[in-house]
């Protein structure tokens, strides 16, 4: 399926979301409250059939935090990017997609560890790489005390 058709289809599946046909993939930006429902539809819909979660990227947009999901259909060989943003930097919460794609487990733990995004309904949300004495290093306001790379 062409990206334009896919974008149109995605717009029907997620009417509240903002669907953009990006340079590479169809990008769906939606609010965190819609995320799980839309993801479920995208997975179960036989035409999108996004059965593989390639990656979950935690993002710090400065004022907002967010996650980017790269989803792939192994049947139709297309990819769709889901994006969501939360404005609450103190206690950001996004629905976990572990129930849909078990692969999200580690990816979400990584995002939690490095950006402090809490995933609701995640089965085992613990820090993955770092211990609790660290802040959230991938946030832009993180102060690196060692700071080898500063010029």
């Amino acid at each position, binding site marked *: 399926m062409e990206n334009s058709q896919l974008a149109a289809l995605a717009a029907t599946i997620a009417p509240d979301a903002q669907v953009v046909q990006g340079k590479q993939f169809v990008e769906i930006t939606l609010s965190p409250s819609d995320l799980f429902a839309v993801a479920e539809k995208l997975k179960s819909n036989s035409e999108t059939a996004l059965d593989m979660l390639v*990656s979950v*990227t935690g993002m710090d947009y400065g004022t907002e935090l967010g996650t980017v999901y790269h989803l792939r259909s192994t049947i139709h060989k297309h*990819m769709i990017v889901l994006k969501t943003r939360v404005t609450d930097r103190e206690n950001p919460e996004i629905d976990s997609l572990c129930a849909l*794609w078990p*692969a999200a487990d580690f990816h979400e733990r990584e995002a939690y560890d490095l950006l402090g995004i809490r995933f609701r309904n995640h089965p085992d949300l613990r820090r993955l*790489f770092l211990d609790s004495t660290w802040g959230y290093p991938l946030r832009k306001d993180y102060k690196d005390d060692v700071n080898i790379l*500063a010029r």
Partner: protein
Amino acid sequence: MEEEVKAPVPEQEEYVINMGPQHPSTHGVLRLVVSLRGEIVRNVEPHIGYIHRGIEKMCESIAYPQIIHLTDRMDYLSAHINNEAVCLTVEKALGIEVSDRVKVIRTILSELTRIQSHQLFWATFGMDLGGLTCFFYGLRDREMVLDIFEETCGGRMIVSYNCPGGLMNDIHPNFQKRTKEFIKYFRETLPEYDRLLTGNVIFQERLKNIGTVTREQAIAWGLTGPVGRASGFSCDVRKHNPYSAYDRVTFNEILYNEGDSFHRYKVRMDEMWESMNIIEQLIDNIPEGSYAEKMKPVIKLPEGEYFQSVETARGELGVYIVSDGNKNPYRVKFRSPNFVHLAPLNLMSKGAKIADLVAINGSLDLIIPDIDR
């Protein structure tokens, strides 16, 4: 700091052992907290982060060509392919088409990387299972590939040979001769690997029906590379989404349906043959051309998001670069295959024995720096 969610407390009568961070068969500093009942594994919980270097964070403060030397240090056995992934992403963002020569050389080197990675896999896998001689045979043959790398790229494992727009330097005049010699030698030596290990009844018995992953599970967990293909999940990026010169060579995607440790091993063994085929198709007709495109001294990516995946020796490496138009990336994310493959370890090894856990762990061929990044 908000309160940590505590790790699950092991049930009573469970015998908890820490495999790692220093353990002969965890291939680095992976720590597995294994709950046992007798010899039976009840639960495996990976604890990672012992060599987390924050490569993604480091990338945010350095320029694009400088990212490449960091990717060498993620999956150090697929160093060249990792470099290529970043280069392809940057080239795609800038809209640069590299010359055919670069494409072909990159492809040959990628396949050589794959061969040496699988050789090391074979070597260490044999050692994990207690056959120590494999280790030396594997390393003996890998040395020849490393010599090719050293002669052309200057580094043996950490090659840093790619740069956005092409290659750091042209190939060495001996490159083709040496590569052909190696292929000729290795075509004779590879059957020996099979005689020593693949056919061995102990080896087969230890691996068949161990750590089985179905196709559905493989897709759901995002398992790619030899792990996914052993389960029948056709996921070869080289085939489905060809990059560099993969669209001009013919090769088979190795697929098995069993999904157990033995077939994960088998996929890698067969891939070595396929890699040799690919190299033979390309080695004699490397097109003339420039080895690097002229690039601006400071590379600035146009604002936007770029995603490129390549097939490393272990699976799909995705590079996701978000640019805000500066010379440094705004955010870089590496979707590393090993990180994904570690996640279902518990699923695979539940109910297996300790020796099976080692075998499963070995058959996933985990590279810990790639998990931690």
